[in-house]
């Protein structure tokens, strides 16, 4: 058996099969168990190493050839495989509690499979096509057949599609650089095209306008899933480039570009989140700022930068999943997720309201919550380089925190005599509670998240050394 068959073809095929089922709970159960199994296998099972289980011996082959291209997954890929499938399990398991499993899981499984394939394909320029396939699969997920696609969904499609030729072109140019490394003009052109491609894929400033639009018009849980998996995979895709090409990794200008873009995204994301009145849009801007933090972490360079980037990954998936789940529940109560519509909802939707507040505060970097340790490390690391840049980042974080406080004010503003109650179902309460606990656990003991990365083989050969 080959590793790509297990972590790529199997989930894609399962996604197809699950689309034929109608029972939400069964779909959730199967997808949750399979994703958890794939994550645990990635954690425990070495690739390309013979394993003996009693009389049976088997080996996971690292490569699979398809139409002349190769899909390769090695031991160094196990960490991100575990992250992606563990995160997907986390998302899928809560999906039936908000009755969205039939829509999310089949497409979600297939998207995850294609994105894993994008990270595994060789030559890498085919990754652009696989990412584009995943984007196309995301469209029916974001916009159900009975609903006209909104502006955010169209922009998402446009920006991600425009990114594809940039990546393809840069891939072609990079092949030329490998043959002729002294051609500086070629290097500059290739770097520019690659940068633009990633800027579009990652929704970097000023190409992020589709994110708040998307979170406003799409189902919060689906939007949350898309906004988690695409940037995460794109980041790992980008890190693969940095690991592979020394000229790119060692470019003197790279840290300052990453830092500048990161600061811009955090500041503008935080500032615009501050002025929003729609909880979905606030989540969108928090995602923008979070991508900014990842870029900023990488911009700090060396093992410090890579470690802060990795530290952000787990808190992000928990924070986003909890926030999306909470917003999905609140959407049952109100016609839309505006502050005015949700006034006083905290009294009857206390689990969801608490979840939304904790998740938003966590992504803002509030102490005791999951993202705080990584944000703290980034603030400190950045302050050592530039206190002025830290000020902008701090203002961005403040904007996010104030937007969370505005949500808290609205949810708590119940008229006198309003009764307390819990409207969430038992399953919703359990998932929300798990989310709260994980946020606190990782906020107080971040070493648990760090041990996830430390226990697995090194992700990159050169990066972070």
């Amino acid at each position, binding site marked *: 058996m080959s590793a790509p068959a297990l972590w790529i073809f199997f989930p894609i095929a399962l996604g197809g099969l699950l689309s034929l089922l109608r029972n939400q709970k069964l779909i959730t159960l199967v997808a949750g168990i399979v994703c958890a199994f794939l994550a645990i296998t990635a954690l425990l099972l070495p690739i390309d190493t013979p394993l003996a289980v009693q009389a049976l011996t088997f080996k996971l082959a690292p490569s699979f050839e398809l139409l002349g291209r190769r899909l390769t997954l090695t031991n160094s890929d196990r960490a991100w495989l575990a992250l992606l499938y563990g995160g997907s399990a986390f998302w899928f398991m809560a999906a039936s509690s908000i009755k969205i499993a039939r829509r999310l899981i089949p497409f979600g499984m297939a998207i995850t499979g294609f994105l894993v394939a994008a990270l595994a394909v060789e030559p890498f320029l085919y990754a652009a096509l696989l990412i584009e396939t995943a984007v196309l699969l995301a469209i029916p997920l974001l916009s159900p057949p009975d609903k006209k696609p909104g502006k955010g969904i169209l922009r998402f499609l446009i920006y991600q599609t425009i990114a594809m030729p940039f990546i393809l072109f840069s891939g072609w140019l990079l092949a030329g650089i490998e043959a002729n490394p002294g051609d500086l003009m070629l290097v500059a052109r290739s770097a520019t095209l690659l940068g633009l491609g990633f800027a579009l894929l990652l929704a970097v400033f000023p*190409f992020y306008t589709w994110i708040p639009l998307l979170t406003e018009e799409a189902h919060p849980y689906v939007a949350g899933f898309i906004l988690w998996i695409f940037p995460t995979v794109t980041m790992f895709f980008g890190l693969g480039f940095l690991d592979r090409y020394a000229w790119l990794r060692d470019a003197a200008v790279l840290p300052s570009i990453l830092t500048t873009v990161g600061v811009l995204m955090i500041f503008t994301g935080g500032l615009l989140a501050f002025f929003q009145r729609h909880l979905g849009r606030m989540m969108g801007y928090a995602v923008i700022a979070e991508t900014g933090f990842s870029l900023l972490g990488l911009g700090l360079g060396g093992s410090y930068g890579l470690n802060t980037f990795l530290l952000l990954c787990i808190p992000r998936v928990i924070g986003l999943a909890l926030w999306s789940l909470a917003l999905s529940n609140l959407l049952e109560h109100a016609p839309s997720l505006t502050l005015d519509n949700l006034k006083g909802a905290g009294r009857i939707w206390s689990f969801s309201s608490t979840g939304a507040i904790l998740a938003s505060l966590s992504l803002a970097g509030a102490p005791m919550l999951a993202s705080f340790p990584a944000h703290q*490390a980034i*603030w400190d690391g950045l302050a050592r380089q530039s206190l002025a840049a*830290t000020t902008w980042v701090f203002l961005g974080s403040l904007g996010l925190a*104030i937007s969370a406080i505005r949500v808290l004010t609205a949810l708590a503003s119940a008229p006198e005599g309003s009764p307390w109650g819990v409207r969430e179902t038992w399953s919703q309460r359990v998932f929300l509670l798990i989310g709260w606990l994980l946020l606190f656990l990782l906020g107080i003991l971040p070493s648990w998240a760090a041990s996830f990365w430390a226990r697995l083989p090194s992700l990159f050969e050169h990066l972070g050394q």
Partner: protein
Amino acid sequence: MLISLPVLFLVLAALALLILRLFRPNFKYPWVVALSGAILAFAGVMLWQVRFPASASLPAWQPLSVFNYIPTWLADGVSWPYALSLTTLAAAIILTSVVRNENAPMPWAGTLLLTALGILAVSAGDPLTLILAWTAIDLAELITMLRSTEGESQNRAVVVAFAIRLVGTGFVIWASAVSSAAHLPMNFDRITSNAGIYLLFASGLRLGVLPLHLPYRKENVLRRGFGTSLRLVSAAASLSVLARIPAGTLDSPWTPFLLALTALPAIYAGWMWLRASDEILGRPFWVLGMAALAVASTLRASPEGSIGWGVALILCGGLVFLYSARQRSILWLPLLGLWGISALPFSPSAAAWTTGNGASWFFLLPFLPAQALLIAGFVRHALHPGETSLESQERWARILYPAGLFLLAASSVLLGLWGWDGSRTFGVWWAAIPVALLAGGAVILALKVLARTQSAISQWGDVLRLDPFYKFLNSIVRFLEGLARFVTTTLEGEGGIFWSILLLVLILSLLSAGGG
């Protein structure tokens, strides 16, 4: 190990109360469990003196290449008096609850847990540990207050209070970043000259002193027991950091200005405390006034002074807030609390007026009337008839209740003599003379005139309301909101993609021009 003992006792007692409530709701002696926890915690804090100073740490945050942080707690001259005051307060709250209608074990469990968090905050050995403890206390207060307040404006006030505390916590994080900029990971042992002022702002903001603000103007929700614990633990957690700011870091041209800014809440709170109709309604002003005096001590480079005011805030405040069942024969107990705030030699506040830097004596003057007003208010509230009469209580309650009050007064006396480096001092004893005269005058004024002219001076409370300032801020926010909406509408509109590309070209051309 000894450091964690009081926290362990308090948490175990609180958990025991919780478990008993869930599985044996008819258990007859939850009060005994609560009191045992508090008394053991008190003894645990006393035991800190066996190995003094000492520290305890948890494993360092991983990975070590990123974090330079080991959660640490200190048992030293700063944390010990605060921890002793907090455990004394917890024990006193439970002892005095016998005369109040507070028989439910959950508020006792809450008091014990809050005290445990308070001890973790006052003994925090580094800013990050302090931040985590502060946030835990803030969340506890937020949840408690939201569960117990009614009405939109009251709920909004609760959220505003939480937000302000969060910003205060942000100042510590910023102080840490400023330290990092100087390539010096922040620790209370080595605070850079730039970072000290931010720590002061953090504490001042959380206490409502810098700048003056008072989110909880109406103290009508949580009454004596748990409410007192909530208010005083929260204040103690913010005050303890003042004593850890090195004097040198605050020696700046801004110090006189900050002292003047601190005098304003001190006098305002003193006056409001004096004229409050009872001690519970005046509680926010007591906290504000005493905290302002503590901040002023720090600004005058006198950490001993700030500890003195902090300890007096907890112990003397606790004494007057818990003094609900009254009788002439035990009036000496609350009046003994006056010792704590008198600034007389060997009292906890004896070092209150010492000055460790070049701050002029002139800046001391506004604080003397503030202290006098706080003393006068204390006397006035102690002389009120009270909620109930002690004579009407059971015999055992008539023993336990004064014992609880005595514990507070005795701790106050003890800490004046054996509290921290710099206690057991004569201090600036002569400053107590004008204060005593002023306080005497204010008491007479309060008892004879104030009751008759309440309505005429009720507007005084509104004089320092910051509503116009908040309205001004609000108008700025509205303007910026309009601007942000214009930008987002443009970028998200039909021509949004082209605007984005144009913006990118503009940025790239600016950057390349800068680079070239």
